[in-house]
């Protein structure tokens, strides 16, 4: 839980002098240093994590020199030529990414993005305005790579690379969750997510990275999932949930299986759904659904992590971790891949996977064996989102549903950043919710669909040591939930993202006690009328159904 008390935080957000409350800093931003103190930074990556990842990516130094270092110290034990590494790192990326080049050149500082960032809205820190976040890097770009910057210097917004700048980068590129909300409003489509990705790649080159990202990434590489669950433990955990399903429904599902060759569909989930509340209820929902329709599927313990922690570091590690999915689909001989509810996972699957690790010519164009629907929108990547799959089943009347089993819930839906702005998956989950629930209320329009607000803890920021910051970053989302909580009595915040399920929980506990968090598939699982089940008196989390209390 956050260190700061709710009342104090509430006052601070609304009244403390900040750019959100109308206070103007006296000093120019270039003259305002980043100061690290406990609570405002993520812990640095452990030496052995850096060693492991470096070794596994061909010892190219992508993660810098493995070492122990202290963020608050003025000696980060950087290599002697760290500035050269950074400048070369920028150059390499300018040559590889048109996006980076254009986004460095085109900003006119119109400020349309300024108040679109959840971190700015929650902290009022000017460097959390997307435009300034980008300027932190752009100023160095100008100094090194543009004529105007070289000749005019500060007049053209250029400045030299210094240790102070490096500190700024580490602070503010880890206060960006790559949610792309600013990009939606930018007249040139400048996407801070791209800039943050570049900045983090570059920071890693000099060994500046966080443990909360590199350790899960290492785990994902070796064990297949970010928590490092070994195959037997992963299976065991999933099977506990079969026990729970039996307790709720009276049915022992026999369909859950692992690493089975010849299955039609490989199902990949964010691994948190197997072991962490409330993701486990989402997982129970998946299993009930597959059993209900008799899907021929398997889950892999090797490719048991959909969420890609590599995408928070560099494109090389993103590719390496993602590569398991196609590799496993090929080994098992499945026809296509189905993906669970996960945000960053789907950004990678939708916009990167086929390019990085395709072509998936050993798979077939996904076709629902139940409805016969061919998922033409996934014709090349051959991977379908569970919400697309479920919405199709519902449309064709293939599910027996008792909506009243979700009557104890008054719902709203949180669009996760990546499905919304990196994929366009917006109405599918809503169709499902409308079909399985009676009480659904949308949050205000500026806070949903493509304008949705981040949970405040994406891209590897959902670590405990920056809880106050996360509560601030999540404030815009929490505030919109509070609106429907007060107005309609909303008590359940649904979403299609595993990071959301972890982080919104903390966010709701802090800002909106009384609002719980669930995946959409949990609601489906609650509502499904299974053949031969007993009369249910509780939901998947053993909570009493409406009319069954007491």
């Amino acid at each position, binding site marked *: 839980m956050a260190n700061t008390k709710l009342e104090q935080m509430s006052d601070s957000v609304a009244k403390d002098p900040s750019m959100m409350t109308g206070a103007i800093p006296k000093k120019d931003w270039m003259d305002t240093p980043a100061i690290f103190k406990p609570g405002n930074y993520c812990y640095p990556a452990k030496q052995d994590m850096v060693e492991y990842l470096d070794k596994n990516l061909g010892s190219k130094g992508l993660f810098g020199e493995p070492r122990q270092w202290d963020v608050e110290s003025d000696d980060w034990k950087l290599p002697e030529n760290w500035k050269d590494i950074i400048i070369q790192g920028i150059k390499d990326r300018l040559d590889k990414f048109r996006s980076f080049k254009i986004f460095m050149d085109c900003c006119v500082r119109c400020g349309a993005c300024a108040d679109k960032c959840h971190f700015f809205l929650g902290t009022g820190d000017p460097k959390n305005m997307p435009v300034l976040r980008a300027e932190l890097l752009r100023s160095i770009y100008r100094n090194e790579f543009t004529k105007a910057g070289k000749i005019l210097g500060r007049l053209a917004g250029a400045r030299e690379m210094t240790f102070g700048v490096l500190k700024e980068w580490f602070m503010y590129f880890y206060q960006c969750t790559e949610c792309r909300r600013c990009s939606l409003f930018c007249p040139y489509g400048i996407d801070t997510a791209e800039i943050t990705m570049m900045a983090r790649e570059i920071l890693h080159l000099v060994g500046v990275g966080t443990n909360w990202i590199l350790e899960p990434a290492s785990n994902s590489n070796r064990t297949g999932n970010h928590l490092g669950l070994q195959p037997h433990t992963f299976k065991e955990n999933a099977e506990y949930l079969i026990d729970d399903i039996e307790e709720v429904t009276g049915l022992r599902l026999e369909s859950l299986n692992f690493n089975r060759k010849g299955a039609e569909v490989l199902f990949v989930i964010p691994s948190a759904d197997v072991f962490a509340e409330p993701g486990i209820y989402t997982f129970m929902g998946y299993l009930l659904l597959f059993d209900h329709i008799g899907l021929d599927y398997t889950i892999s313990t*090797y490719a048991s992590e959909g969420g890609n922690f590599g995408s928070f570091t560099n494109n090389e590690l993103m590719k390496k971790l993602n590569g398991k999915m196609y590799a496993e689909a090929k080994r098992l001989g499945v026809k296509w891949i189905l993906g669970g509810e996960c945000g960053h996972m789907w950004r990678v699957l939708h916009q990167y996977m086929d390019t990085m690790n395709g072509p998936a010519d050993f798979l077939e164009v996904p076709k629902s064996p139940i409805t016969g629907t061919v998922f033409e929108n996934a014709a090349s990547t051959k991977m379908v989102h569970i919400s697309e799959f479920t919405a199709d089943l519902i449309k064709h009347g293939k599910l027996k549903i008792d909506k009243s089993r979700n009557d104890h819930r008054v719902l709203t839906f949180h669009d996760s950043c990546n499905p919304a702005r990196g994929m366009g998956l917006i109405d599918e989950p809503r169709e499902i919710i409308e079909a399985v629930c009676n009480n659904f209320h949308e949050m205000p329009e500026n806070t949903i669909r493509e304008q949705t607000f981040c949970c405040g803890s994406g891209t590897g920021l959902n670590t405990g040591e920056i809880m106050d910051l996360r509560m601030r970053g999540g404030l815009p989302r929490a505030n919109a939930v509070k609106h429907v909580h007060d107005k309609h009595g909303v008590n359940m915040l649904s979403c299609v993202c595993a990071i959301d399920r972890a982080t919104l929980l903390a966010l709701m506990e802090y800002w909106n006690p009384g609002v719980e968090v669930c995946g959409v598939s949990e609601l489906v699982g609650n509502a499904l009328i299974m053949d031969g089940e007993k009369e249910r008196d509780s939901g998947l989390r053993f909570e009493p159904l409406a009319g069954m209390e007491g």
Partner: protein
Amino acid sequence: MKVLQALGIVLALMLVAYVGAALPGGRTLFGVVLPYLAFAIFIIFFIAKVMDWAKSPVPFRIPTTGGQANSLPWIKQNKLDCPSTTLGVIGRMLLEVFLFRSLFRNTQAEVHEGPKLAYGSSKFLWLFGILFHYSFLTVALRHLRLFTDPIPAFVHALEFGDGFMQVGAPVLYQTDLVFMAAVTFLLLRRLVLPNIRYISLVADYFPLFLLLGIGTTGILMRYVLRVDVVSIKMLTHGLVTFNPFIAESVTGIFFVHLFLITVLLAYFPFSKLMHAGGVFLSPTRNMANNSRMVRHINPWNDPSIKPHSYAGYEDDFREFMVEAGLPVDKELPPKEEAPAAEGDAPAES
């Protein structure tokens, strides 16, 4: 401070032109040599910049999806904000380039006690942005009368339309007023809004003052000083026909006007003004959201990056997997002794 620096630079430029043109040879320098030079710089470096962008690879297909994607047949796609076809992308780009679609979405956030966040519609930036760009375009096109002979019909039509209110003599062009008002708004906005002021660089104020200078001198020449247009046209038309001639009646203020334009042209390719070219190439806007439908090729994709192999994974965990009843590709080696005790498993963390 930054704003004064920018203002100072523009005033200095004006003075340089005014004084410079009066010096021996100055009229040719400011009237002929520098304009030619600036025009060449503009063309060469503008094209070079765009070519540089265009030849950089686009490794991934990363459109920012601004609405519902192409999905199941009965789910209504937002074809303009989340296009999946080239036609849709063209539509999205046309809206972006001609109507500033993304800016039209703009909102303004406020924090109130509670805390309570509120988001209001905020269309002023869009409105004045669009007024500025279109009035600037009209003014520029109207100036074609100075570079063409005979004057094309559309320039006449534009002049007529622009002065349709028939106020004053010479007739007042509405775009002159709109242009000055819009640029002034954009400048005031930078000065008044604290967050915009904080992010503004000298390089943001400078083009605004440059435009104000150009507009002011132009308006003075047309409406107040009534300069000799015939001799000016002799020079401007002469410039495009490579036969420039500067008549005695061309005065200092014209050289100030022309020099500011000269500076604008030469400055353009090295500045943020290149957004004019960049907007067309922005990968978050000009790509179709069909990433799962059509494979996008990354020219520098590194095939040597392979996932940690399944075989390696199984080697690591085979005993546990067998014990847990998970299928394995390679069975455990047959053991000579009886099934081992627990301590036999390799220690794994």
